[in-house]
């Protein structure tokens, strides 16, 4: 197979990544893979691998063919710096560090796909919410604060939808242990106070209960 970038050399680097929930394949020769800041060197530390994925100049993926490089006039124009701390995206790319909370919203368009890539397709937080802050907003009640913590109706539904999609996938591939975890997470997320969205009906396939899945626990 020819390299998707230079179309000259044999592709030796192959990867499949999740991009906005879609599987994207990329096949590159060694030279182009290195240029893209990625490597299939088995000795490369994972942290370095992740940071090179994060900082790869040609992200967000997918990027196929040299012609894409010429369509970069949009990326050449000056980008705004962060309203909160003044950090520019170029400086973030060099250091790998964001400057403040507002950087996430300022750079969301470019940062979102990079974050998704670094977290194996994860793009929406699932799990713990600051406990006291959530409690305060429920007791007040403060709808704006609740939305800040749990997201608006669309974001809450999107979060549930993502867990449901993963759950269905696990059931289809008969990975019942992971499915049991996801089912627990779905119940927890949907029942979180302030989230008024009910989960969709359970999948038709059986999902092991927490008790039965824990029979595979550590020795």
């Amino acid at each position, binding site marked *: 197979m020819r390299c998707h970038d230079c179309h000259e050399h044999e592709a030796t680097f192959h990867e499949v990544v999740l991009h906005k929930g879609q599987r994207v394949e990329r096949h590159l020769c060694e030279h182009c893979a290195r240029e893209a800041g990625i490597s299939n060197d*088995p000795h490369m*530390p994972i942290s370095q691998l992740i940071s090179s994925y994060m900082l790869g100049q040609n992200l967000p993926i997918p990027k196929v063919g040299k012609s894409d490089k010429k369509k970069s006039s949009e990326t050449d124009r000056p980008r705004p710096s962060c309203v909160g701390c003044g950090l520019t995206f170029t400086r973030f790319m060099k250091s790998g*560090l964001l400057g403040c909370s507002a950087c996430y919203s300022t750079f969301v368009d470019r940062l979102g796909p990079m974050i998704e890539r670094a977290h194996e397709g994860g793009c929406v*937080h699932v799990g713990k919410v600051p406990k*006291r802050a959530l409690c305060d907003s429920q007791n007040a009640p403060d709808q704006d604060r609740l*939305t800040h913590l749990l997201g608006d109706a669309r974001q809450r539904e999107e979060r549930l939808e993502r867990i449901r999609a993963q759950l269905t996938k696990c059931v289809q591939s008969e990975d019942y242990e992971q499915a049991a975890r996801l089912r627990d997470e779905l119940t927890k997320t949907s029942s979180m106070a302030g989230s008024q969205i009910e989960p969709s009906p359970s999948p038709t396939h059986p999902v092991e209960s927490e008790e039965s899945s824990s029979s595979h*626990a550590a020795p």
Partner: protein
Amino acid sequence: MQASDSSEPMKSANFDRNTQWLRGDGDACDVVMSSRARLARNLAGFPFPSQSNDSDQHQVLDACKQRILSMPLENKAQMLWVNLHDSEKEDRSLLVERQLMSRQHAKGKQSNGSGNADSPRGVAVLMPDERVSVMVNEEDHLRMQLVHSGFSLRRCLQEINTIDDAIEQDIDYAYDARFGYLTACPTNVGTGLRLSVMLHLPALSMSGDLEKVRNATRDMGLAVRGIYGEGSESVGDFYQISNQTTLGKSDEMLLRELEDEIIPKVISYERHARATLLKKQNTIMLDEVHRAIGILSRARLMKVEEAMSLLSLARLGVLAGIIEDIEIGMLHTLMLQVQPAHLQRTLGVDLNQQQRRLARAEIIRSRLGIS
């Protein structure tokens, strides 16, 4: 409330007495030296440390210090607080060697080049068992960790969540519905949670199968690092394995992946490799272990790397029943005592390299009962 905040906290601190993770007990302690949970948190309304000025850093430091020192603690426990910008270099090295903070925090330098040894920052350590430590103004405003001996990730997670909730009582965290807990490096965003286990894998190393395990764990999206975390090399066949993904999976999901699936497999590979070595290459293994004990018992000059490799083999020998009169907890303590800052503290004088090697060999001989 019990908290110590003297001007010279490190001088009066009594390390090496009840350190939790050095005990050598707990589940699967033959392979798992310790388990650790780490949370990254930032305060709302302040830039992250690498982008903040001195005044912001002092405000964050004061707010966090006040909150940490007023947390309710269990009976007889004390929270030791160290202002690192006012501390001695040797004390900072000691805290790094005891894995209570990162090398980066000791230097005060951020990965974007900002900061220096005088940057306002601190670390809190729960005494006497050292199972909790909280770094303030490292890469994130707060980096808290909880360590237990053996394979006990669930306990670590439960206890770190209690600390996290206690700190959040008076502090608003930087948090977003989409990205979760916001962190300076986007690789930590979401739960901000790293679960890790420190594994002792000498048999996999001897049998040459370690690379397979490293590759397999990496394929499963885990990081394999040396004993002192990111960027560090393995010393004495000790490795840290931890999750990389922090967004899109809850803390409970991350925990179960590591605790129920991945780590038990690595533990059983190492145990299998040890059993195979004992059975098929018994003489070679006996020779390796006794050679190590021989050098530890007789050497007059010892480099730290050599000491760690030999102590690692001694640990294997004790666990395999080859050596009977050495206690595992003592070997663990010795692994810290041979480190440069620990030697300096024990002897109380500045030592050059040659003197350190001499002192190191002497301490090992005396702990092994040979003068």
